[in-house]
């Protein structure tokens, strides 16, 4: 009798960690969803946001706080839904101001800075938490961020393929 051995996956790899977390959050979202209407646009948009946030959050949690971008993303995700409260807004405002100050001080200088002036700023906007980093660390964070994003995309694709006929 041939036993089907599923291909062994490294249980502690980024991919498996992200996959388990994301599936868990997806099931939670599905449990919450009202069975009747998903046709109202705002409802759908909200659902989309929830799923995207779940994906980002599970990815950030898989990385824990080892990376600057994951820390920044977790912070952003935590404070975003609670924007309504005045206390949180003040902290948000303070942080953005602080980040802007950091951005002013950490402009890349020197020969490489002249080359990378515009692109470095653009990259800083893309990578979460990139405003307060110099070019070297920014590139490092970008590399890890790209790796995590590709994992995320692959896992989500596989889930989507699996669940829809």
């Amino acid at each position, binding site marked *: 009798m041939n036993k089907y051995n599923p291909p062994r996956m490294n249980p502690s790899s980024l991919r498996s960690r992200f996959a388990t977390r994301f599936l868990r959050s*997806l099931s939670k979202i*599905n449990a919450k969803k009202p069975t009747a209407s*998903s*046709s109202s*646009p705002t409802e*759908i*948009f909200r*659902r*989309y946001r929830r*799923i*995207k946030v*779940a*994906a*980002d959050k599970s990815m950030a949690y898989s990385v824990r706080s080892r990376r600057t971008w994951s820390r920044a993303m977790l912070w952003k995700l935590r404070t975003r839904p609670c924007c309504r409260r005045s206390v949180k807004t003040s902290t948000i405002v303070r942080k953005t101001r602080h980040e802007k100050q950091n951005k002013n001080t950490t402009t890349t200088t*020197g*020969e*490489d800075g002249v*080359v*990378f002036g515009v*692109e*470095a700023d*653009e*990259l800083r*906007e*893309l*990578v979460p938490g990139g405003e307060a980093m110099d*070019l*070297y660390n920014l*590139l*490092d964070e*970008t*590399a890890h*961020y*790209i*790796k995590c*994003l*590709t994992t*995320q*995309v692959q896992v*989500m*694709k596989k*889930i*989507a*393929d699996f*669940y*829809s*006929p």
Partner: protein
Amino acid sequence: MQPACSREMQAMDSLLNPTHHLPLQDLQIHGHPPPQFDNPTPSHDDFLEQMLSTASFPLSSSSWSDIDDNAFPQGGDGGSNPFQAMKMMMMMQQQLLVAGGPTVASAAATGGTHQGGGEGSITSMQALFNGFGDGSFSHPQPSFGAGSKTDINQSQGPAATTAAPEKPKQKVRARRGQATDPHSIAERLRRVRIAERMKALQELVPNANKTDKASMLDEIIDYVKFLQLQVKVLSMSRLGGAAAVAPLVADMPSEGGGDCVQTSANGGGVSLPRNSNGDQPSSANDSLTVTEHQVAKLMEEDMGSAMQYLQGKGLCLMPISLATAISTANSHSRSPMINHVNPNNGNHLLLQSSGGGGDGPSSPSMSVLTVQSATLGNGGVDGAASVSKP
């Protein structure tokens, strides 16, 4: 000159020491009464006065220069000759006049311990000399300064030059064409590290033909944007679970016109409310989704009115092949977005086509594509798609 200087230093120290070995001997030789040394502080002045009064020595500059050149044989010891002691004091003052205390110390370059004492003694010596204000000394001083300046300078010159080259020899010898400046070294190191990082990134990003750093960075930025876009798209396609259709999701038409490119298994070709600037996704998304929903509603009723509505907004529907053709024609720099999508054969971010307006809503799923005809310049095709299921 250095040994002479050091000996002079020693002489100075011994001269002005409270122990008064030298002056005692001098005074004994000259027969002065010793009780003058009971009080040490004014004893310096007394000693000098005695030296000046007793000894008679030529004050011409030439003789002084001869004296300068001579090495002092008995500078540090008893100095039975007060003349020599006086000479040493004059030497010190000459050096004071010419180069100042610190340069004497640096010219010596060896007596680190002597320097402190030497400087202190030199300043005290100068104070003593100034205190005299004698005409006999005021006269020869300028001549000393003038005459022996050259000698002193010459003596100090080789000392200085010998001292100076010793320092850089301890530094790392620079390679030709590069500086040893610590700033430039740090810059060089930084550049090397950044180059390493760029190489590592290059392996992650496809289309990595590294021509230069700036274009490489542009590629990286585009790729990050593309990946973020894919995440958004995938999260949208999962709305409603299995094969549910939402206005935000464009599905693959099962029959489909021949123009459909989407081939993924779930048929979840999705297109996306794409923003012209990624800074404020939420607000832009809202505005686009509203449009989409309007279009979806209209589509359910009447296709024509939907088309008119779209055109009123400056949007249009078109088959995907045409869309890709147009986008590749227009967007030169941003075509990597599309190029990435097509070969991946995954979920295409673009723009699905409807099977033709005339077919009507017979197909179970219909894809609708809207393309903003205005700006294709940033990031592939800006478009929003909506799907309505009849």
